[in-house]
């Protein structure tokens, strides 16, 4: 069990968070290779089905990373994402998916430290939880 390495999927919006992840790269900030990004134009595009699909395909943790409130490139897409997140979290718990396995956060294009920080923390906490399908 000790060498369990979780798979983390992140849905990143094109305008801020994907840029933030790129910025972390340009600054050579190392973070766990467990994290894999899927780009969407806006977090508003993240259908709850995407999240469920990721868990179903073997992800041990899923993240939605978008622009800070008020900064969404499409004005309010991230606000919709937040609303969906709140509901979906509760639904996932009913299916035995711990709340800690699903996280939403705001990453601006310049937030490289924050990006590395949330990804690292997420990886650590999911590692602690163990594999989703034990």
């Amino acid at each position, binding site marked *: 069990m000790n060498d369990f390495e979780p798979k983390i999927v992140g849905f990143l919006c094109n305008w801020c968070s994907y840029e933030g992840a790129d910025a972390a790269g340009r600054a050579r900030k190392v973070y766990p290779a467990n994290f894999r990004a899927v780009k969407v134009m806006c977090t*508003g*595009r993240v259908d709850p*089905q995407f999240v469920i*699909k990721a868990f179903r395909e073997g992800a041990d943790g899923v993240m939605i990373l978008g622009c800070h409130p008020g900064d969404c490139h*499409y004005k309010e897409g991230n606000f919709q994402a937040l609303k969906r997140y709140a509901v979906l979290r509760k639904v996932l718990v009913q299916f035995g998916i711990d709340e800690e396995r699903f996280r939403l956060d705001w990453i601006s294009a310049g937030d490289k430290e924050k990006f590395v920080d949330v990804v690292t923390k997420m990886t650590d906490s999911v590692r602690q939880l163990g594999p989703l399908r034990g």
Partner: protein
Amino acid sequence: MTERIGVYICECGPNIKDAIDLDEVVKFAKDLEDVVLARPFGLLCSQEGKTFIEKEIQEHNLSRVVIAACSPKEHEHTFRKVLEKSGLNPFALQIANIREQCAWVTNDKVLATEKAKALISAAIRRVVLQEPLTERQIECQSDVLVVGAGIAGISAALTLAQKERKVYLVEKLPSIGGKVARYEDLFPSLECASCVLDPIQDEVLHNEQIDVLALSEIEEVLGYYGNFIVKVRKRARFVDVCSCIGCGACFEVCPVKVRNEYNEGLDERKAVYIPYPGSLPNLAVIDKEHCLRFNGKACSACQEACPFGSINYGEEDTIEELKVGAIIIATGFDLFDPGKVPKYGYGTIENVYTSLEFERLISSTGPTEGKLLLKNSKPPEKIALVHCVGSRSMESNEHCSGVCCTYLSKFAHQAKEKLPDVEITQFFSDLCLPGKEAQVFFNKVSSNNEIEFIRLKSPDSLDIIEQGGKALVRYTDVYEEPKTAQYDMVVLAPAMVGATDAARVAAVYDIAQGKAGFFSEEDTTLYPVASSMEGIFVAGCAQGPKDIGASVAQGQAAAGKILSRLVPGEKLALEAAVCEIDEGLCSGCKTCIGLCSYNAMTFDDKEKCVSINEVLCRGCGTCVAACPSGVIKAKHFTDRQMFSEIEGLLRYSS
């Protein structure tokens, strides 16, 4: 049809090659479904790399391409062009970001190699399902509407006016020129304002491509970038614009006197009037609200006095419909009302003025014809200039208007010119003198120590009370000492804020209003003149406080944005990856309508379904994720493509 995918992996010098085991990745990618070949290459974005891919596509008859390299933000565009050149649709490309999001952030080569495989596998699974998209084009109007004929609007109109393009310059007041027309001298050269403004006002009034609609307001805006339909109400002037020469015979005889808003209420005007001497267009106007005739009395004094028969009491408002491709909103600013903060004594203590009032007091076209006088007609002996009124404070406005320190220097200079013996004190807490000119100007004006500067503890650590008919300024200075001083005139520099009717304007155009009532720009850094609505631009002080030069620059910038996209006779190119709805399957629940930030969704009452305006849609996909029937498709981000990408990311085996 089976797809033929080519996978190209960029070494990016040592950047990728040293961090990832590329041989292994190539071996892995080769064996994936639909992959015809997988190849590493030194530098794909170089000319050689581009030619290489082009040749490969043709030689191997590829139908899709995956490029594993740097971020799509770097070179997606470059490689899409390569595909296009080779006869493939640019959307048959997917990029696996193995540099920024893999090689550069993973220390362990084995882990980096694994991650690269996952990213490439995801890209391959996704690219198979990508659909060809074409850039859409629509017919568009190249004419432009500019709202607000101040310095920003005028600059925009002049930049836009050219053959085959009409500009409608709409101004709600009877004359053009905005705030600048009320000033006497302009920073930094102290050039007279009318010397700067008159020539460009003349140019606007005489340019055949520019239609100046004074006394007019926009009532409704329909449509979208390229095709707006705008309803303008032209208020009746009651004066025939063709025959009136602005001689003034009418207002000499008018018996009504009302507050003169052009002099900030410092004197009175008649009910028929010309805003100020030299105002353009030089035409009289009847103020219906105050004219006796429109208030049930039988006065026709002006009509009788007019030597040209220009007065026409029967004139009515007209509604005009304009078709334009784009709109620039340059409706300017207003000053924060210092009356809202009673401690400044504005409105209660005599001879306490706002900066705009002071501009009129020293203007040769103002109420005293430029003589600096107190209410009792004596010249002031001591003047206090107060910085940061209603700004840089959490209670009123947090922002700094950025121009007050400069114009207060100008005031000090102007007052000294007129009254060499006048004593001037500036109350400030910090000085903001940015740019090439302001500090230099300030140094020049304050170099001879004739102006006293008192630094306050904070911008608002001062109040003003009346004492013996004078204004007593009580303040705490930067050394925390409470002190007082008496002045016979006080000039306040209130914060610049969004124009009083900005909320109404924002509603008409459906654009966002931000802090202090200014219109929000799309992006402060990169798109400072784009509003939240495509095709509607904001310029000048309507967007935020700024000086005259910056207002002109924004007017010209907004015009430039339009010139580069709305070319007469050419079509307008639109974003290809937008959303599409299957109207036949739409249940008409309207969930999506409320979610769309761009009013792109409309409900068809007859068909009971929603349709998407592809011009307004920007492709964010929020509606797609929300549609309970799953009948909206985000092009290039379809459910199938996303699912497939997720599968590829997680379901590969190395």
